[in-house]
């Protein structure tokens, strides 16, 4: 179990093509009865079709539409999110941080790829990449400019580095002109990027 042990072998014996390598590993584990192939299908289906940023968008839309819900969400995010039926793996301990005209929040995991799966699904490649992880804490304004968001100097930028088991969701600002929209229409405006803090929610009225 020592760290040295896990380094002490050659890796080149294993196929370098990741698709072949994973296929070989799957067939070995299925043959040994260690995993069930149908369970793998169900896991993939969950994250491809069921658990994704539409969950988080529902949470945001509810908070915009219902001030009492928003208050509960900011005070106890895990339970408020559970009211909408979301929770569980990588969403066990949630914190919601609110963007305002004065404060902009940005979420990162500098050490690995921690991300609120239960409300946003699996993280995008850029979130897990070295450029984002390394620079989000030292140059958040530069990172945001790369995403097309140029914040005024007087805005306070708060970066949340997910170093423990708390998972962060940004409550974006509700865009102007959306007063007459219902919750469903509001949810349709909310993007994953806005809930990570690298974007804003936009609204263009169609006349």
């Amino acid at each position, binding site marked *: 179990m020592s760290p040295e042990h896990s380094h002490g072998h050659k890796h080149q014996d294993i196929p370098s093509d990741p698709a072949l390598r994973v296929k070989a*590993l799957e067939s070995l584990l299925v043959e040994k009865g260690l995993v069930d192939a149908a369970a793998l299908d169900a896991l993939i289906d969950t994250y491809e079709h069921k658990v994704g940023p539409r969950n988080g968008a529902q949470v945001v839309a509810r908070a915009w539409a219902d001030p009492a819900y928003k208050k509960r969400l900011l005070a106890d995010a895990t339970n408020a999110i559970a009211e909408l039926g979301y929770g569980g793996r990588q969403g066990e301990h949630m914190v919601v941080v609110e963007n305002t005209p004065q404060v902009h929040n940005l979420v*990162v995991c500098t050490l690995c790829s921690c991300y609120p799966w239960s409300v946003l699904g699996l993280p*995008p490649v850029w979130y897990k990449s070295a450029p984002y*992880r390394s620079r989000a804490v030292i140059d958040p304004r530069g990172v945001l400019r790369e995403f097309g968001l140029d914040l005024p100097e007087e805005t306070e930028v708060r970066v949340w580095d997910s170093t423990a088991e708390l998972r962060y969701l940004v409550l974006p600002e509700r865009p102007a002109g959306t007063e007459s929209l219902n919750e469903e229409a509001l949810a349709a405006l909310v993007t994953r990027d806005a809930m990570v803090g690298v974007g804003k929610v936009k609204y263009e009225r169609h006349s």
Partner: protein
Amino acid sequence: MNGIHDMGGMQDMGPIQHEENEPVFHAPWEGRSLALNLAAAAWRKWNIDAGRHQIELIPPADYLRMSYYEKWTQRLEELLVRTGLVTRSEIESGKPSPGSPKATPPLTAEKVSSMLRSGGPASRSVPGPSRFKVGQRVRARNINPTGHTRLPRYARGKTGTVHLDHGAYIFPDTNAHFLSEKPQHVYSIRFTARELWGEQASPRDTVYLDMWDDYLEHA
């Protein structure tokens, strides 16, 4: 461990590659790798901290070169061998050793949704009051453990303010090495960007880190 994974504050890693309408998986094998990791973890031979640490043990040059799910695949192979579920020769040959017994998978398709739904809460209850109070000034200890830690280098030795007490959680530094859960309070600590990065940082900006009690000392 002062490894390449601890990259907060590094520069020159290149532009951020944002992809419009990014698919959940870029190839079917990525989904299979994720699912294999989750399904094999259902044997409970390792915990989430040990799983994270196993990725940190990938040598730095490989860590930067490999894609995310390549790292997940390698991590899984290492954990399977370390915990004895699979032998190295089985990984290399892709075939069960002759005469090895056939197991029954703990995770079936019917159990997937309830397994994900219940998750794996890391919160624990500990007796007694917490050591630090909201509003108090604290310093992140300057420690350089050779094993797993969730205290990033960029915060060590820096002084911040307790923003919140999240309650008690499993301590990854011990749990990753199968030593004990050593539950203790986790606090949200607010650091000014200037404390972390000096005069080049905006005087308005702040960075919040979640820190276990053992990472902190009175300032």
